[in-house]
């Protein structure tokens, strides 16, 4: 289980500069956290329309962390996707990255993935989403600067990038070199010029409401 929360609507609107948008919802963890449940989505669709956005289509996919499922399902929506100029994703950070990997359109997260103390359920590792609580994927072409950049930088590459590789390992891609290539490909390089505030490390702490609900379940069971 990966826990995500909706970003404030203003933040979504700030990311979403394009007019035509396609919505992709995850029916897995995101559904459980209610970020992709029908009520929420209806409300957001209404607000998007009020702000002049055209919703080209909408699809719910069982698990957005499964590339095969995404390909199979999205192939039925090719035309609508071609008409769209951006994609808004309701899932954890991994789902956003999967979608972005497969479609060369600007892909924006509607959510922040919240820290559960490394409790990542079925997902096999933390190499793609550290549940940092401040999803940056909307400004980085769907490539996570927290997991792909060794220094977790949010304002561009350090001076150590050598031939597209990281200064600590000549076989490791520089995350910012990948981000640059992707943004260039989707015509969004201007996003890189925006200043990013330092990260909020208060969010790297399991919120107390979730700690009670999820993380300490094991302790509760033992008491029984």
């Amino acid at each position, binding site marked *: 289980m990966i826990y995500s929360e909706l970003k404030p609507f203003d933040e979504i609107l700030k990311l979403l500069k394009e007019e035509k948008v396609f919505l992709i919802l995850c029916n897995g963890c995101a559904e459980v956290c209610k970020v992709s449940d029908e009520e929420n989505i209806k409300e957001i669709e209404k607000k998007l329309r009020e702000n002049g956005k055209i919703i080209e289509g909408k699809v719910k996919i069982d698990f957005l962390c499964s590339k095969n499922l995404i390909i199979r399902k999205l192939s039925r929506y090719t035309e609508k996707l071609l008409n769209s100029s951006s994609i808004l994703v309701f899932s954890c950070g991994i789902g956003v990255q999967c979608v972005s990997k497969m479609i060369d359109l600007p892909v924006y997260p509607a959510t922040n993935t919240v820290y559960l103390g490394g409790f990542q359920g079925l997902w096999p590792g933390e190499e793609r989403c550290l549940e940092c609580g401040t999803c940056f994927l909307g400004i980085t072409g769907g490539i996570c600067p927290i997991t792909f950049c*060794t*220094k*977790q*930088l*949010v*304002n*561009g*590459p*350090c*001076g*150590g*990038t*050598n*031939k*597209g590789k990281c*200064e*600590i390992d000549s076989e490791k891609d520089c995350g*910012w*070199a990948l981000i*640059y290539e992707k943004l260039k490909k989707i015509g969004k*390089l201007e996003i*890189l*010029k925006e*200043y*990013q*505030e*330092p*990260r909020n*490390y208060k969010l790297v702490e399991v919120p107390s409401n979730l700690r009670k609900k999820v993380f300490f379940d094991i302790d509760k069971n033992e008491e029984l």
Partner: protein
Amino acid sequence: MEISNLQKKLNEGKFVITSEIGPGKGTNLEFLKEAEILKDKVDAINVTDLQSSVMRLGSLCVCHLLVEMGIEPIFQITCRDRNRLALQSDLLSAYVLGIRNVLCLTGDHPILGDHPESKPVFDLDSVSLLKVASELMEGRDMKGNQLDGKPSFFLGAVVSPGYEPLELQIIKMEKKIMAGAKFFQTQAIYDLKKFEEFMKRVEKYKVPILGGIVLLKSAGMAKYMNENVAGVTVPDRYIEMLAKAKKEDRVKISLEIGAELIKGMKDMCSGIHIMPLGWDKYVPELLYLSGLI
């Protein structure tokens, strides 16, 4: 408001020369003699901040010692091992200790140094550090709290003209300028044509740029830099010159190459930044050969 000599000269459009010293590992202050050699030859001296992530005597303290020696320091400060509390506090300390020039860097990863197991910090980056320093100068910390007494700095940053892709480097440079960088020092330059193209592309920013000079001590060092140092390409011609030179002539050839580069870049930029890497004693001769003294 008092301004640094470096800032004053750059404001007046005068050509500036900066150099660099690296504090030692321990309390021995012998290395300050290197600064003494450079004292009247250069406008300011950078003091590196745990260069290559190797634990050493600190930059802040050595900058203060330079101030006491009547030498203007450039305080290099990195985000590698201090969080936002420590960085802001050290900037205030620097001002109180008489330091005015500050060079803001992200810093090397600790894995590259002699304590590879240490926790990498990078709470801020070079861009946010510049912005925070600018805010301190306006009399408030990064949370907007009022300061009782505010510092005044001449803020600088670094840029790598040989970086690929250059466009990405220039975007970062622009962000640094927007965040408050008033001058730039570059990575070592060996390709003047590439440097000229870079200078043309960044002309629009109208910010002083000091071209970086690293003396090539041997053909081996040049090859090593080509392999391992980001954004540095030493042309084969220089490598051959060094490889052919007899051992006793190597310094002479090295200084000749340095002088050729300085003469070549002199009219393109606002000054030069010499990183002698221990060869401080040859800097006066290098400047003489370059026609700068």
